[in-house]
């Protein structure tokens, strides 16, 4: 178990290093930041001063190591736009994004898993078909279409909820609703198929044959076994949650890191984009690490021996 965990942690660290390298290479190769920041008509000496100040004249490997070193010291550079620290800009926006993503994840888990499990236990019923149809619908509708439709219905036509901004909890309702739909569909579908597979296993038949109540079979035998594949999907969903936040924040003018990403990408603000890429990748890697650790808790067999990867 320990070696398994250590390998996972090592791979996670390697992935983060790769993301950093990627961000660095792409952003540096794509153009001269001095020309972008100062405009094409800037006088030569101010361009030179700018390049010297940001270390742009050093060879790229030197810039790369300087970059790695500063990240190791938790210094993510300074936003070229307004000269404030990149990490502070990101941290400032983080609560707003968490205010959307955390409730969304809870709603997705709270509705998606029970709906899928219920559908699996009542196969071929009206509820089962309803869940299948709704879940297919849920993940084929793009979030930007969903968001605009909700705005059209609840903000424009009915006038119940505001269509954008971040002043009260009412402003968060439509964004959270928009983000939840797709994930509920995916979770419901996966929990349903995981549960169906488990319910077909011999140990379930044994449990029923020895006279356990239906409730005990489901809660003590089926659900713990179905939880492993479901947890895997939850780990993957963290990524789509962040990507969803980018789109949804842009629709509802929500001042989170998604909006910050789009703004700094169009301003070519290297430091902020790098910092954001790193924060997003780290949160995904950490989420997947948690999933790996959760396997150990959920499945006693993994505690005894590491699975072959």
């Amino acid at each position, binding site marked *: 178990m320990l070696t398994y965990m250590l390998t996972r942690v090592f791979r996670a660290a390697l*992935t983060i290093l*790769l993301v950093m390298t990627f961000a660095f290479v*792409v952003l540096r190769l794509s153009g001269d930041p001095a020309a972008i920041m100062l405009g094409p008509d800037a006088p030569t000496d101010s361009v030179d001063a700018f390049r010297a100040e940001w270390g742009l004249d050093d060879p790229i490997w030197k810039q790369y190591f300087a970059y790695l070193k500063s990240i190791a010291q938790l210094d993510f550079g300074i936003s070229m736009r307004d000269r404030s620290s990149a990490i502070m800009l990101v941290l400032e926006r983080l609560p707003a994004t968490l205010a959307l993503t955390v409730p969304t994840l809870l709603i997705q888990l709270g509705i998606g898993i029970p709906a899928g499990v219920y559908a699996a236990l009542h196969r071929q019923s009206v509820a089962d078909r309803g869940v299948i149809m709704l879940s297919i619908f849920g993940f084929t509708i*793009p979030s*930007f*279409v969903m968001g605009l439709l909700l705005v*059209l219905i609840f903000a424009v036509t009915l006038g119940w909820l505001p269509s954008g901004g971040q002043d009260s909890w009412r402003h968060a309702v439509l964004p959270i609703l928009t983000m939840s739909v797709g994930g509920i569909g995916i979770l419901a579908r996966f929990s349903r198929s995981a549960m169906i597979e488990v319910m077909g296993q011999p140990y379930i038949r044994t449990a029923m044959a020895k006279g356990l109540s239906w409730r005990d079979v489901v809660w003590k035998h089926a659900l713990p076994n179905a939880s492993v594949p479901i947890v895997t999907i939850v780990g993957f969903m963290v*990524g789509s949650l962040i990507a969803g936040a980018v789109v949804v924040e842009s629709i509802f003018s929500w001042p989170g890191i998604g909006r910050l990403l789009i703004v700094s990408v169009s301003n070519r603000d290297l430091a902020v984009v790098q910092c954001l*890429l790193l924060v997003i*990748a780290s949160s995904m890697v950490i989420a997947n690490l948690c999933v790996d650790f959760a396997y150990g808790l959920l499945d006693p067999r993994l505690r005894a021996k590491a699975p072959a990867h």
Partner: protein
Amino acid sequence: MTYQAINTAPVPSLIRRIRFKAPLLVTLGLAWLALMALTAICADLVRPYEVTQMDLSARLSAPLTPGHLLGTDELGRDVLSRLIQSIRVSLVIAFGATILSAVFGTLLGFLAAQFRGPVEHLILVLADFQAALPFLILSLAVLAFFGSSMMLLVGLMGFYGWERYARISRGLAISAGAQGYAAAVVQLGATPARVYLRHILPNVASTLIVSMTLTFPEIILMESGLSFLGLGVQPPQSSLGNMVGFGREYLTRAPWIMLAPSFIIMMTTLSISLVGDWLRDKLDPTIR
């Protein structure tokens, strides 16, 4: 005789039941996809107006106005004509990207299976990296920093989902190598290229085709998402996502500009998902 055969048949599995129940929906899905493909191919013939033709006297006219079946947008351009052109652009991008990522991913998977060792580790680490960053975020960074061009967009979308093909083809190729038929042709003196292309590929093709039907709608959604954010297909060219993006400004006054492409996106991804699920049940040997 037949009656008896049906009676003694085992309880139908989920797969078989889908196969009996789905055809109506699957047929509808296939019909819709055929219609879309036809629209994309004949876009120039069926389009009533030029995409950029403006008619400022008929701005924002509602659907079903004579001459403009789906109405016009803020510059008086015919929504139907733009829709037809957008279907073509979006489908061409999605199609090109799906092929690219399938070829690229399968090739890497085969390379990993052939050389093992460090090559395999490198490819798996790259796959991990791809999975660690949401593709939308990755493309946002690349597109905004290199500027958006059609070639770059198709190329970028061509990376979407390569890691899935790589994982699948690597796994299948390794297990095929263990099955003997591959070893047999190697013994007969076949070059690795011949072994992989003529012997292993046909055996794993059905699984790969199924993954293609899964990535195709995701690429459509990804491209329309990027275009919606203003970083994908650039005007004057239009795609489905970019129509939704521009239609958003006229949500209150002219919702049809945004509703028409949204409907097409949803119907197309829905159809491909239905057809893909059905195809998976039919073709994929790994879930039997």
